[in-house]
């Protein structure tokens, strides 16, 4: 590419709490009637005062720690003053110079290559109300006003779109793994703002302009926006011009951006310390307590799976993409010894089982198959108690009706037939029934395969194919 992208990301994440950030209104507002979760505080009535939500702050600190940030032991809230109809107080309570977390990083994996994206800051603020445009009017709903938001800001370390999407995905996983929030983008629980510019490939330093794109609501749109902006900005640079430094927005999900008329000077936010909220002071012990609640993160699991089990990167990535899946997997392999079996479990989880679940839109937590069951199934397969084909049948039966693999195999007589005598009888029968093929045995190289296939058919997949072939060849006096 002729130009390199210089991209920084700002991610807004709604923290999952029962009540709002500065008042005790119900925070579970999505889908509710407009203006049904409001109070003097989040409605910005004269005289109302903010009282910060302790759990929201703990979640912010937790995420900061997971992102390897330093925690400001002395922290405070500040007022960010600007006007917009959905900002009822005419200011947003946010954090300016002493955010809870700062100077961290997140390591991402792009095509097997590990890269580090630096996190400038992680801070706490409140969400605004919702504006819905209807004709020449705007409808204001303050249910969302005051919802706790955690803002993660990165350095402009992204140099290509793959890095951005990898980061976004990983961050979303972190948010869910750590129970910071649900990060359900369709509900607006995680949103992106992009800062992007281009510079000639290989050049040093930062470009002399920056374009900001706000309100990006999904990772796929984020990708489209980056690609669109690349083309748009490159056009200017090709002509020897500099793209205008401005804020742009979206009108749809196509990735096309539009300039927003922002008057000069109007982004002077006049930050000053929030007088209504005393500072927040953390002790080492408190930070330590929060740190203890950080469980193994997806990238840590991925590394561990690859190192300890020899799981291939993409497969590991798929398993760790959700905490439920990873934990289900870990449970499934507890009784297994060999890496081969473990890898097989992974493949089946991601392959056959996922396919079954997808068809029903089922969840791991409610399907009839328990992790131990899959583990046992694969184990039996590896002990050659059942063939691969039979195993798939057992999987389906377990999925539909529950039950333990060993029981199903016993009940339905699905065990692999490896006993020589039993096999010989069947082989003999197959030979009898296929005289024509037998006659062709020397001329037709596929005849043996066909006959083995017939043995499998005869046994409904239960024969050990290798043994069957061995016996067949013996019977036919083949080498």
């Amino acid at each position, binding site marked *: 590419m002729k130009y390199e992208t210089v991209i920084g990301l700002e991610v807004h994440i709604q923290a999952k*709490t*029962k*009540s709002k950030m500065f*008042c*005790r*209104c*119900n*925070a579970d507002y999505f889908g509710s*009637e*407009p*203006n*049904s*979760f*409001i*109070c*003097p505080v*989040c*409605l910005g009535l004269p005289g109302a005062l903010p*009282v*910060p*939500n*302790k*759990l*929201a*702050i703990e979640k912010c600190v937790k995420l900061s720690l997971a992102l390897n940030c330093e925690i400001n032991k002395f922290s405070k809230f500040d007022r960010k003053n600007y*006007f*917009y*109809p959905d900002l009822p107080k*005419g200011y947003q309570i946010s954090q300016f110079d002493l955010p809870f977390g700062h100077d961290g990083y997140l390591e991402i994996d792009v095509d097997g290559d590990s890269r580090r994206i630096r996190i400038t800051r992680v801070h706490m603020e409140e969400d605004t109300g919702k*504006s*819905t*445009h209807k*004709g*020449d*009017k*705007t*409808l*204001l*709903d*303050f249910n969302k006003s005051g919802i706790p938001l955690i803002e993660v800001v990165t350095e402009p370390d992204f140099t290509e779109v793959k890095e951005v999407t990898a980061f976004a995905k990983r961050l979303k996983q972190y948010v869910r793994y750590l129970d910071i929030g649900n990060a359900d983008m369709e509900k607006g629980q995680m949103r992106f703002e992009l800062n992007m510019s281009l510079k000639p490939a290989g050049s040093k330093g930062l470009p002399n302009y920056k374009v900001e794109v706000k309100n990006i609501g999904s990772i796929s749109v984020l990708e489209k926006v980056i690609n669109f902006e690349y083309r748009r900005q490159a056009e200017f640079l090709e002509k020897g011009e500099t793209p205008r430094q401005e804020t742009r*927005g979206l009108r749809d999900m196509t990735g096309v951006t539009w300039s*927003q*008329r922002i*008057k000069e*000077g*109007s982004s*002077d936010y*006049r930050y*000053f*310390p929030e*007088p209504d*909220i*005393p*500072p*927040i*002071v953390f002790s080492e012990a408190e930070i330590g307590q929060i740190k203890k609640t950080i469980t193994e993160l997806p990238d840590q699991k991925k590394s561990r799976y690859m190192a300890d089990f020899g799981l291939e990167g993409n497969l590991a990535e798929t398993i760790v993409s959700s905490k439920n899946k990873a934990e289900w997997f870990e449970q499934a392999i507890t009784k297994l010894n060999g890496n081969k079996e473990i890898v097989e479990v992974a493949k089946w989880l991601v392959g056959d089982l996922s396919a079954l679940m997808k068809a029903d839109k089922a969840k791991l937590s409610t399907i009839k198959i328990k992790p131990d069951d899959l583990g046992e199934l694969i184990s039996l397969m590896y002990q050659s108690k059942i063939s691969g084909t039979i195993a798939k049948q057992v999987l389906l039966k377990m999925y539909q009706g529950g039950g333990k693999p060993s029981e199903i195999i016993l009940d339905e007589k699905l065990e692999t037939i490896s006993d020589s005598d039993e096999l010989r009888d069947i082989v003999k029968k197959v030979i009898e029934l296929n005289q024509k093929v037998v006659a062709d045995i020397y001329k037709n190289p596929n005849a043996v395969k066909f006959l083995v296939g017939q043995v499998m058919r005869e046994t409904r997949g239960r024969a050990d194919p290798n043994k069957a072939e061995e016996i067949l060849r013996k019977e036919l006096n083949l080498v």
Partner: protein
Amino acid sequence: MAGMSKNITDEDISKIADLIKINIPKGSRGKYATQLNTVLEAMDVLKEVDTKNIEPTSQTHGLVNIMAEDKVESGLNIDDYKNRKNIQGRYFVVNKVIK
């Protein structure tokens, strides 16, 4: 607004007024410019005070870590809300913000 001289002009008043969204008609800007100048001149006394190594105070009570437990409490009912000039149904309705 860096670069605005201490001698506040009507233009300056116009700029600040836009920031804080108070419409000040042309005729009144002069009055406020004068008032603001008077006030700012009085503020010059602070330059006389040495505040090297002094921490700022924004709150006098000395409290820290005042936070609330994450508990839901009931709030206002929009149907009972008496300031209804801009309410239609359950929404507050205003003219569109032009972007």
